């Protein structure tokens, strides 16, 4: 079987790809003629050529790919004639090829309106890489530019002019609005505003009568007698199917152009197929790449004996136009007689959303999204699958902007046939099946189903499907602490508080079963500490503490411990530095400066810990709580006392904050910092709560963290005084402590918090829950109850006794502990 393809654009290439995929089944010969000098490239992303992508970057496949797959590719050689009787084609260069099947994928040409003067210098069309090269060569002569055509391609062309440095650019549209096939007047107005902000001026309702200038263009004359001066003009007023070859061969074409095809993409001659923008199906030319690809698939399958059919294509689109989200789906303009429209417009933010629903409020017909298209996927699925709408359909629009959208609930309602990834044709059912088969991460699901591997637009839905499917299998179930306590951490905290329980044993008696375990014990111990701030080794709670808390030190390789005295704000006297040096020498400790402006002493034997702390405390140090899920350090820059840029005394404020919250136990460790000016040397925006000096006071940022998933803190309150700042931190920390899941840092907590930052700000600043005074009082109680736990151990012989390695040989150290030497200090011996 021999197949000849006329045209090597995106769709012609896709046809080759589809045939190659079938080669093992059908030995066939494939010959391709292309008019352009290079193999098929990504015309959709043509503008990226101006961002620095090369023509090679845009290639869909290299010339080698065609060779490797046995495809004979004739470039720069358009076909001139089709001889249907003898089943041959003849090219411009005189090559004659016979065919069993012929595929016409000649695409479209730019439609150039019949306006006098189109032949002047400086007038371009926007279609091929050659067009771009000519525009680029001409652009340095141009100070102002214009584009005829306010559709998708026209706006892309306008972007190209901006990228070429022509900042004074106008878009001229004949109809009353931009993108007339996708959006309505109101949406167009919002889009125009947005574009104006980017320096792009839009003229609508303008009929160009003549192109002015002698040799080169100087301006445009409109039908309303106005004139626009311009040095360069790009025409992008629509497309015209390339059907002239088919017409000459006697194939049926439409009255306004386009090669007539049936559901199998066959033309009026059953041995000749036509696909892409030159094909006319059901009175429609499909000017997008996705339906073109679908046509390529249908034609390839039909030629190789499968029975696929093209039945039209959803022209819903979502794209970023010059940085603005624009989406249009289903029937965006539904007739007001037969539907209701809900419109949401925010002129300040530049967002416009419209959905059309049936008059009975049951179903979604289509809609338009501009400025924020986050809801596109969900709305498109709701339309396509004829899903019944919620009682308040406006929630579909407002949900996303309120920051409370729950796409997770949405995906579960989709039918299994729902197409989640339209690039790769992957249904919801296929994704859920993959998850059930054990592919429980996004990467796994992508690998296994190919969903989300093309444009990536469906990735959030794929993620939601993974979560939902796992939940359905009981893998997430209820958020309980563990098998011993059938409650969430938040519920446990409330229960313990109501009953004023003070020990793990009491809590287990009241609310648990069994003996507890390494999961629930530290959770309960942390809750008790957060509620009462009792000495954590009292009341039998020592054995409920995580190992580090139980020994008030961090266990390190080899079984020795590290010691971190508190150095508030990172400020330390030379005398205290000497003490640390002396202790380090005496107990042979490895010393290192930590990331939080403190000093860590490593390699202490368990039995030496009380002695080391006795000496540290005598010199005025106290516990640094480096071992606890507690406040660690409040880092600071040197601030206004020394720094010539400093606005306020960041060190003093950092010390005040560190001393207020020292020893505070929380669901996870807490870090903080204070910067004395906007240069942010203390890196406060990477902390759980960070403070930056402003001219008028302090800016308070919350919920940042470093670590494996860094996240910037977000502004909670601006320009507040020191006391207000501390009041807000009190409320924020207490609210976090009371509501977070175990071992959840503030950043993750915020990410999961319904309503996000807006909600948190309402609680902390506006007291929307009416609990601010209570939160402050609870924090004050913890602050008042603070005692250095190491001082208590040092002063209590019974507690000191617990810091020995052997219960029956308290003087002996663990003989298996081994050290090695490195750079004149010791290090732990390597473990197996």
């Amino acid at each position: 079987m021999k197949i000849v393809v006329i045209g090597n654009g995106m769709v012609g290439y896709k046809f080759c790809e589809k045939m190659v995929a079938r080669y093992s089944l059908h030995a066939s010969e494939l010959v391709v003629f292309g008019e352009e000098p290079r193999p098929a490239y990504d015309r959709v992303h043509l503008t990226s050529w101006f961002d620095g992508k090369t023509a090679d970057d845009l290639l869909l496949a290299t010339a080698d790919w065609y060779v490797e797959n046995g495809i004979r590719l004739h470039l720069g050689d358009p076909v001139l004639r089709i001889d249907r009787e003898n089943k041959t084609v003849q090219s411009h260069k005189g090559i004659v090829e016979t065919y069993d099947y012929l595929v016409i994928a000649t695409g479209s040409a730019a439609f150039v309106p019949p306006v006098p003067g189109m032949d002047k210098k400086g007038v371009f069309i926007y279609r091929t890489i050659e067009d771009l090269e000519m525009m680029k060569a001409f652009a340095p002569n141009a100070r102002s530019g214009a584009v005829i055509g306010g559709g998708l391609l026209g706006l892309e062309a306008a972007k190209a002019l901006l990228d070429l440095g022509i900042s004074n650019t106008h878009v001229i549209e004949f109809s009353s609005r931009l993108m007339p096939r996708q959006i309505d007047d109101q949406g167009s107005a919002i889009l125009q505003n947005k574009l104006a902000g980017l320096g792009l001026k839009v003229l609508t309702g303008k009929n160009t009568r003549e192109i002015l200038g002698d040799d080169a263009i100087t301006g445009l004359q409109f039908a309303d007698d106005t004139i626009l001066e311009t040095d360069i003009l790009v025409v992008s007023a629509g497309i015209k199917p390339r059907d002239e070859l088919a017409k000459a061969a006697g194939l049926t074409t439409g009255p306004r152009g386009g090669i007539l095809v049936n559901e199998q993409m066959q033309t009026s001659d059953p041995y000749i197929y036509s696909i892409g923008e030159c094909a006319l199906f059901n009175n429609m030319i499909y000017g997008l790449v996705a339906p073109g690809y679908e046509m390529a698939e249908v034609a390839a399958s039909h030629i190789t004996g499968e029975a696929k059919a093209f039945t039209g294509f959803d022209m819903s689109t979502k794209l970023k136009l010059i940085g603005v989200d624009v989406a249009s789906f289903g029937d965006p303009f539904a007739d007001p007689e037969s539907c209701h429209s809900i419109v949401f417009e925010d002129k300040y933010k530049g967002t416009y959303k419209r959905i059309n629903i049936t008059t009975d409020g049951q179903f979604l017909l289509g809609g338009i999204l501009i400025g924020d298209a986050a809801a596109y996927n969900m709305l498109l699925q709701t339309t396509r699958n004829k899903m019944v709408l919620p009682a308040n359909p406006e929630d579909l629009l407002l949900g996303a902007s309120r920051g409370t959208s729950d796409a997770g609930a949405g995906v579960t309602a989709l039918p299994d046939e729902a197409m989640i990834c339209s690039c790769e044709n992957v249904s919801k059912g296929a994704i859920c099946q993959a998850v059930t088969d054990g592919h429980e991460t996004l990467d796994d699901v992508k690998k296994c189903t190919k969903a989300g591997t093309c444009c990536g637009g469906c990735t959030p839905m794929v993620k939601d499907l993974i979560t939902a499917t796992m939940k359905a299998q009981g893998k997430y179930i209820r958020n309980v602490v563990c098998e011993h306590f059938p409650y969430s951490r938040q519920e446990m905290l409330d229960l313990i508080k109501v009953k004023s329980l003070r020990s793990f044993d009491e809590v287990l008696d009241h609310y648990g079963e069994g003996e507890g375990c390494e999961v629930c014990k530290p959770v309960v111990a942390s809750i008790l500490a957060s509620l009462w701030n009792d000495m954590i080794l009292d009341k039998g709670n020592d054995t409920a503490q995580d190992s580090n808390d139980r020994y008030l030190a961090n266990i390190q390789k080899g079984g020795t411990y590290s010691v971190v005295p508190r150095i508030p704000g990172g400020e330390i006297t030379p005398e205290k530095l000497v003490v640390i040096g002396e202790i380090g020498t005496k107990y042979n400790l490895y010393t290192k400066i930590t990331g939080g402006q403190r000093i860590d002493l490593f390699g202490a034997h368990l039995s030496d810990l009380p002695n080391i702390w006795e000496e540290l405390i005598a010199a005025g140090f106290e516990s640094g709580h480096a071992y606890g899920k507690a406040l660690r350090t409040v880092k600071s820059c040197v601030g206004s006392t020394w720094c010539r840029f400093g606005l306020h005394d960041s060190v003093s404020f950092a010390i005040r904050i560190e001393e207020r919250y020292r020893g505070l136990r929380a669901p996870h460790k807490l870090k903080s910092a204070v910067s004395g000016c906007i240069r942010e040397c203390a890196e406060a925006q990477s902390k759980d709560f960070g403070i930056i000096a402003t001219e008028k006071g302090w800016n308070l940022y919350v919920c940042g963290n470093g670590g494996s998933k860094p996240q910037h803190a977000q502004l909670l309150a601006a320009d507040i005084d020191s006391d207000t700042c501390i009041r807000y931190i009190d409320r924020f920390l207490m609210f976090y402590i009371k509501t977070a899941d175990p071992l959840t840092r503030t950043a993750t907590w915020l990410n999961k918090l319904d309503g996000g930052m807006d909600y948190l700000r309402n609680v902390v600043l506006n007291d929307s829950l009416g609990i601010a005074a209570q939160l402050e009082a609870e924090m004050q109680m913890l602050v008042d109850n603070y005692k250095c736990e190491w001082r208590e151990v040092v002063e209590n012989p019974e507690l000191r006794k617990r810091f020995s390695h052997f219960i029956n040989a308290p003087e002996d150290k663990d003989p298996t502990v081994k050290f090695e030497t490195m750079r004149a200090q010791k290090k732990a011996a390597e473990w197996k």
Partner: protein
Amino acid sequence: MSTIHTTSTSWFFACKTSDVPTNGGVCVKYKEEQIALFYFARRNEWYATQNLCPHRRQMALSRGMTGTVKDEPKVACPFHKKTFSLKDGRCLSDETECALTTYPVKIVDDKVYIGVDAVVEMADAQI
């Protein structure tokens, strides 16, 4: 091996019952060995295992947190939270991990005795 174990147990005095924290562990020195001793106060049960966590060969199990899983007593190593059954010493969180040696424990008045087996002792000495 278990029959030899029970027939040739010799008991040594480890410590007083009050030396061991309730619901926690201590490390007992026996000749050159380290044995972890655990007390489950709520059910008044005592367990003893080797102190060495086989995962990274760290002398740490006595400092681990005790608990139960479906009523089976266990300890979690403070280093990487591997959990081991105190009944038979097998690793509960990782099937491929070596099991712990366990020892019988006897309480007489306020004294804790741990039973060691001559054969096991010899095997340990060879390692």
